[in-house]
């Protein structure tokens, strides 16, 4: 992984291109959003003076004042319900829930209110809300601190859902999400907060930086991103699983297997065209996610691929995912999250598939 080899000393390498951790990239994006849009307000549990438990809002209250960056009482439904009212009053809220698992108390407000108010009001009450959710596992945290809620969010009409896998995308996707008039669930891969990578802080539109070892030159902010080109099989992933899939691709390359890694980025709407293009070429696909298998977003991705590539697909799409079990305690989390071996086994199943 290129970003792990970058040291503090190289933190600013060139005009426009900065070596930032995802935490720094997100923090910087929020700072700029606050500067650029006076209607933006940021709030949640411990977002103010503490800067959030992951320091994503670090320093923002001191800089932009307690009116624009503030702590709320400890109640997620309250935070999201309040966001609805602020949006109705013309604000652009960027609320945070402290951890993925604590989005559940707010689901009623998210599903029945945030996602529907524009529809219910026939477009007169848009909900330009960007909900930041530190997401996914891998940090040996307590219960409910390692959940993957993307399948739930993606199923809700009226929501858009995005997850960056690297600092560059984190910066640009957050700025993009916060500038849109519709509600976006912004799922941050918390295990990647501290990994550094190049961020082109000038290029909101071009998105031309080489990032996360990727080779994509043309990816727009609204679609998926080819993180690595390959000919034999497509690995589809998002969030923290992207870098793991890139590792897998390197290993597979040693065996002469040339793997394409597609960073889905947008989990709703899904970039079906990118899936069709990639698997149209490779004819084989494995989708990887941390969430449990059954009714996970992998099923949707697999079905979209099957739908568009049925005639040329060499094997059924494989899913390598978390199991249908509650996210386990730290000692077992490496057994639960798709690891390199399990992804390689999935690839092998696809490559060795024979009809009949």
């Amino acid at each position, binding site marked *: 992984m290129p970003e792990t080899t970058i040291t503090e000393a190289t933190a600013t390498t060139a005009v426009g291109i900065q070596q930032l951790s995802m935490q720094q990239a997100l923090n910087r994006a929020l700072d700029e959003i606050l500067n650029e849009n006076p209607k933006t307000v940021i709030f949640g549990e411990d977002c103010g003076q503490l800067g959030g438990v992951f320091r994503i809002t670090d320093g923002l209250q001191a800089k932009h004042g307690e009116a624009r960056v503030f702590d709320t009482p400890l109640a997620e439904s309250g935070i999201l*319900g309040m*966001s609805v009212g602020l949006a109705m009053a013309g604000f652009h809220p960027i609320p945070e829930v402290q951890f993925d698992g604590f989005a559940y108390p707010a689901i009623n407000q998210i599903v029945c209110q945030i996602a529907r108010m524009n529809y219910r009001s026939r477009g007169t009450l848009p909900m330009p809300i960007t909900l930041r959710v530190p997401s996914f596992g891998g940090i040996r945290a307590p219960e409910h601190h390692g959940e993957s809620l993307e399948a739930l969010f993606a199923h809700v009409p009226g929501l858009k859902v995005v997850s960056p896998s690297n600092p560059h995308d984190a910066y640009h996707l957050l700025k993009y999400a916060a500038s849109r008039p519709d509600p976006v669930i912004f799922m941050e891969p918390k295990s990647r907060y501290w990994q550094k990578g190049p961020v082109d802080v000038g290029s909101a539109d071009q998105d031309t930086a080489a990032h996360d070892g990727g080779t994509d030159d043309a990816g727009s902010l609204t679609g998926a991103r080819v993180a690595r080109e390959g000919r034999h099989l497509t690995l589809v992933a998002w969030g923290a699983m992207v870098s793991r899939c890139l590792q897998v691709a390197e290993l597979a390359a040693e065996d002469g297997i040339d793997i394409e890694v597609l960073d889905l980025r947008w989990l*709703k709407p899904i970039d079906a065209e990118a899936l069709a293009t990639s698997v149209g070429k490779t004819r084989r696909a494995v989708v990887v996610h941390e969430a449990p298998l059954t009714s996970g977003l992998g099923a949707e991705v697999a079905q979209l691929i099957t739908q568009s590539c049925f005639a040329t697909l060499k094997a059924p799409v494989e899913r390598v995912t978390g199991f249908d079990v509650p996210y386990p305690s730290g000692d077992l989390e490496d057994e639960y999250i798709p690891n390199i071996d399990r992804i390689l086994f999935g690839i092998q199943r696809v490559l060795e598939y024979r009809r009949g």
Partner: protein
Amino acid sequence: MTLKPVLAALDDDAAPLTHHQLRELYTLMAAVRHLDTAAVAWQRQGIIPGYAPELGQEAAQVGSGYAVDRARDFVFPTYREMGVARAMGVDMVGYMSTHKATWHGGMYNPLESRFAPIQAVVAGSVLHAVGWAHGQTLAGAQETGVAVTYFGDGASSQGDVHEAMNFAAVMKAPVVFFIQNNGWAISVPTERQVAGGSVAARAAGYGIPSLQVDGNDVVAVFEATRSALAHCRSGNGPVVIEAMTYRRGPHSTADDPGRYRTLDEERLGAGEDPLERFKQRLLADGVADEAFFAEAQRKAAEEEETIRAGIADLGPRPGAEMFSLVFQEPTPALQSQATAWREESEHA
């Protein structure tokens, strides 16, 4: 322990209602009573599939809605605030369209009406009011707009109401929590719903001043609301009003109250009819005469006619709106669903 907090601006020297205003209040109540009764009939006649009557709550709704300043305040209703809507001048065909099953939430413009879309989730919009109100604080206007959120005794059991009161008090948000305690949440009476017996009594725990008011006395409700609005407007934080009233009719046109209360209980619980009571007072005070009441009745009937005609004209919305109104910026995926839907509808 905190002492029971009191309103900062008790509105003692606010001007008493003029005769004209008192008559206007009655006219509104008569219109609401008539339309409400009509809507129940419409449901029986198959004109609308369902309706939630507010029979008996006219004083609570008209009295409070009349106090709202439509230039700056904003109201967050439930599914049973037709009287508030009417008092605030909301387009009633647009309002009734939700009961016609034309569009969930209604077809009036909520921003222009200062009346949020009709809300079917019990306690669903109480927090919205707090957010909207905090937005007024952030905007920093003097004599700020106030959010008025309506909910019932049943709704008071929801966690969101607690979160809303606590948020509002911590942030000193200009919100009036207006509870219509109408004795029932579908079949469950207040005494098995509201521990301690009073929603207003909970306000003290948050340091919020509260007013428990005779919800069948339109003038008392108006004055309580005006006081509360004045308190909020001057930056003193939220107020809780509990209007004690009674749901004289069924919960909705699908409900069968005979299963959980007798006609006798109904009569006892409901007490004196708020319309009749106000009429007697206006007569006794020489504010209005029988001719006035007859005229109010005639206007109410005329109004119902117009609304019924409007409802009949509504027709179903074009199916394309299912897709086009989900987002401000529709997604390609959704657009292709819309295309498929259109093609299949045309070829079916």
